[in-house]
């Protein structure tokens, strides 16, 4: 039989003004299982808490019900008090008689009655309570950062600087990401590579960072603090330890005309290549699809010229297995290309390019050495039309959202063009100018006022080619939707930013949820922007939604702090409010039938399959098992389970059923 103490709080007059607290305490003392019942002015005060602690010892209580304010306010206070008096904290309950009773009702018999009903219900719950122990999980203090763009670089450096080991995985041959491709950055117009490359070098040289480029995450198992990750290190076709990065092979490779991914197909590269001169690591990779040797079996010029004999044609992919405590996803974004737009020629007009291509044209290290030359004939365009929101904010294209970065980079593009081609005309079609950010609006103003970029508010309905010109047909909505036609030499589409290729796959591997656009989903849009719903996996940069460099870097540092906090202790302590599959007496006797319909219900992928085997290794039963490291205690699986084989600690079937019965009991005893 339980021995429960009831403590009714006056909360000054907050409760006692409308509730007859003495009567509640007196009636409560008559409830079955209640051995002690008092009222007091301020239960949460030190003397009030002492009252509880002493009663626990004096009456040898097995449960405590404090009738006072909302548990959201003082539940931790009284749990702590119980613990100090030697009572398991999860044996205490709060009856909310302030927010849910005294404050919302007038003084009356019914109000006192309700307060008592609430107390009685919580006494019922308390008598069904069981002692719970906080869950402790060990933590492997090594982080994995996926993606080596500016966000991944920042996150890796920040974590590494807290003294923890970091593995940085990047799928392309060099880190740097999109930022390495940019010409200059808004709103300061400083050179993108100049500010990024020192960071890239720092990553390569940091003693706490292990860098795997040309590598991808193969699989992820486990849970917060205890991930088991397999990384596929794709064959570079060379011995990285021997290679000095002299680059002789890349100059001698007979294949020279392969469109370069880094140059957004505007430039070329050999088959053995580093994506760009400042690549980190500065070790080339052989593109086997385009290499003469892999295609014909002959050539091997690179092997011949290599002074350190580092080329390995027979190299194979290797799988590395690592134990990881926390993961930061920083896989960035892609942009749509001009072939996404049938109305703008579906990619058939060479001089209709996307923003990233323009970055390469404007970049001093780009295919045109920073001269703005159009791709079709290398002429310097005298008139460029920039189209903002190409694809973005367009439900018909399936992209309802604003890509956020395009307003700014379009202004930058127009400005760069005007700086480089003084007699050129730059026209921008826009829907709205969204320049929220430090010095952003001023930057756009500068483009309009100082650099005379023509801004036209309206959409472009179609582009077609006529006599070597691109006819851009649009509307000017500020002039009564008057139609506008511009004969342009080149068109730059500020195409929508989208989730990077393969992000859906990666999300599924990581068990991270993602939105309809395949961007990774944060745990809470306001308060948990860098967490995911999967414990121990965090987000940085544009993989969550398109964002600019300052935001990406800030987010990366935020994610790094979350990782550092996780690594700050050896054990992870969690509230024991988790679901459990019954397995008493012994798992083979569990009532779980292993239908696993609970699996898709769990938002945290916490439900695993457990196979019970006989001595010969044959599976005799499969049942669900809840991973307590992952379970967050929502209890949706509990309500779904038909055989009532799952229960939620702290909110068990017995407790909830008891509460329902108790709450409806007849009036005062």
């Amino acid at each position, binding site marked *: 039989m339980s021995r429960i103490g009831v403590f009714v709080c006056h909360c000054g007059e907050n409760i006692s003004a409308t509730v007859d607290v003495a009567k509640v305490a007196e009636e409560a003392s008559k409830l079955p299982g209640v051995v002690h019942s008092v009222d007091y002015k301020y239960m949460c005060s030190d003397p009030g808490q002492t009252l509880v602690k002493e009663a626990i010892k004096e009456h040898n209580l097995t449960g405590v019900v404090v009738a006072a304010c909302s548990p959201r306010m003082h539940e931790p206070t009284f749990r702590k008090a119980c613990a100090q008096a030697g009572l398991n904290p999860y044996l205490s309950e709060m009856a909310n008689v302030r927010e849910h009773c005294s404050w919302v009702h007038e003084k009356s018999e019914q109000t006192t009655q309700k307060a008592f009903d609430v107390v009685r219900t919580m006494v019922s719950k308390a008598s069904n309570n069981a002692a719970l122990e906080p869950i402790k999980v060990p933590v492997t203090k090594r982080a994995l950062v996926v993606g080596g763009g500016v966000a991944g670089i920042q996150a890796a450096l920040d974590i590494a600087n807290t003294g923890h080991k970091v593995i940085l995985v990047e799928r392309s041959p060099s880190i740097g990401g999109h930022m390495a491709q940019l010409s200059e950055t808004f709103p300061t117009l400083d050179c993108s590579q100049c500010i990024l490359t020192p960071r890239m070098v720092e990553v390569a040289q940091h003693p706490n960072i292990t860098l795997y480029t040309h590598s991808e995450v193969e699989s992820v198992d486990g849970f917060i603090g205890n991930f088991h990750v397999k990384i596929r290190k794709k064959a570079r076709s060379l011995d990285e330890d021997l290679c000095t990065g002299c680059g002789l092979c890349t100059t001698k490779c007979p294949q020279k005309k392969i469109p370069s991914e880094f140059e957004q197909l505007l430039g070329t590269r050999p088959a053995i290549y580093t994506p760009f001169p400042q690549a980190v690591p500065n070790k080339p990779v052989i593109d086997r699809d385009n290499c003469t040797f892999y295609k014909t079996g002959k050539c091997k010029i690179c092997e011949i010229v290599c002074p350190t004999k580092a080329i390995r044609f027979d190299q194979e992919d290797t799988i590395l297995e690592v134990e990881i405590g926390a993961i930061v996803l920083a896989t960035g974004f892609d942009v749509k290309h001009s072939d996404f737009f049938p*109305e703008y020629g579906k990619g058939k007009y060479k001089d209709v390019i996307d923003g990233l291509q323009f970055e390469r044209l404007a970049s001093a290290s780009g295919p045109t050495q920073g001269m703005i030359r159009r791709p079709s004939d290398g002429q310097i365009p005298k008139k460029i039309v920039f189209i903002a929101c190409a694809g973005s904010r367009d439900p*018909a294209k399936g992209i309802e959202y604003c890509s956020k970065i395009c307003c700014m980079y379009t202004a930058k593009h127009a400005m760069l063009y005007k700086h480089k081609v003084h007699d050129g005309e730059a*026209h921008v079609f826009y829907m709205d100018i969204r320049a929220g950010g430090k010095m952003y609006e001023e930057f756009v103003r500068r483009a309009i006022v100082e650099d005379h970029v023509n801004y036209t508010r309206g959409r472009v309905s179609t582009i*077609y080619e*006529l006599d070597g010109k691109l006819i851009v047909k649009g509307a000017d909505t500020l002039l009564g939707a008057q139609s506008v*036609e511009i004969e342009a030499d080149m068109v730059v589409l500020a195409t929508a930013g989208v989730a990077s290729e393969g992000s859906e796959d990666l999300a599924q591997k990581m068990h991270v949820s993602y939105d309809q656009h395949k961007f990774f989903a944060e745990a809470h849009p306001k308060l948990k922007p860098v967490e995911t719903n999967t414990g121990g996996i965090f987000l940085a940069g544009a993989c969550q939604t398109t964002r600019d460099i300052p935001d990406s870097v800030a987010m990366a540092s935020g994610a790094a702090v979350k990782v550092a906090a996780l690594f700050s202790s050896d054990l992870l302590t969690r509230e024991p409010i988790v679901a459990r599959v019954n397995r008493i007496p012994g798992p083979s006797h569990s009532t779980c039938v292993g239908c696993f319909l609970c699996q898709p219900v769990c938002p945290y992928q916490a439900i695993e399959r457990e196979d019970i085997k006989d001595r010969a290794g044959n599976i005799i039963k499969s049942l669900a098992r809840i991973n307590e490291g992952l379970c967050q205690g929502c209890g949706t699986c509990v309500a779904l389970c038909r055989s009532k084989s799952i229960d939620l600690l702290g909110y068990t079937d017995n407790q909830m059923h008891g509460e329902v019965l108790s709450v409806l009991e007849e009036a005062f005893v």
Partner: protein
Amino acid sequence: MKLGIYPGCSLTGSARDYNESVFAIAKACDIQLEQVPDWNCCGATAAHNMNKELSLSLPARILAQAEKAGLTDIVIPCAACYSRLMVTQHELNNDPVLKNRISEIIEMDFKGTTNILNVVQMIDLYVSPVLKEKIVKNFSHKVACYYGCLMVRPYKVLQYDQHEDPQGMDNVIRLLGGTAIDWGYKVECCGAGLTMSKTEIVGMLSGKIVKDAARRGAQAIVVACPMCHSNLDMRRPAINEYIGEKMDIPVIYITQAIGLALGIDEKTLGLQRHFVPVKMAEYIPPVPESKKQKAKEPTNTI
């Protein structure tokens, strides 16, 4: 092969040539076309500007008639009728309450199960597969395929072709041995319903279409809509007035182009009914516009 056909008013009047050519190629490809019994007007533009229920009831009755007659697939050559019937079926299938209401109005059971085809879909399904063996002379012309608005829009409802750059007719022309040019006015508006009330607007809108097709060296404009045809063909005087030059590029239906390739004689295809004479055989392309002096553009060019 038997298909239902809903001709609508145009095909029995101003677009008799279209009707004749549809039937002519159907016959040549062993497609039996059976008219939806006791059909009525689709309501066209007039109805949906006036009264929503009326604009849905008229097409719903046609579809209900088709269902009653057991016509599971019907072809609708007129793009306006096609649009109205598609829109109606879409709206009613997505709103059971409205569906019941309209069924009450037309006093017929409307299921919304008919498979509605536009003329190019019919060609794709039943003509193109047999075309190769039936072509007697290649339609080796350079043409501009003009789709207008109603065949491809609204995409949400029609789900047909790529609405910004449709290829349906272009593909048919290529099959016939012709060349479909890339041009800028494939899906622009011809002025459509304004043909009676605001002829000068039709002159301007259709004029831009005709001009672009002509200066890119097209020998004909190929259409699949009676409205487009009458605006580009019958309204040629207004177009010429707008352009300030006499344009003699003919406008033919896609079905007529097929008919010509199949060796069907011009009269059977109704080619003699056109306002702008069609002489595909001896057609000489005009000098490209760019080499001449440029005509004045009233649009705001900056």
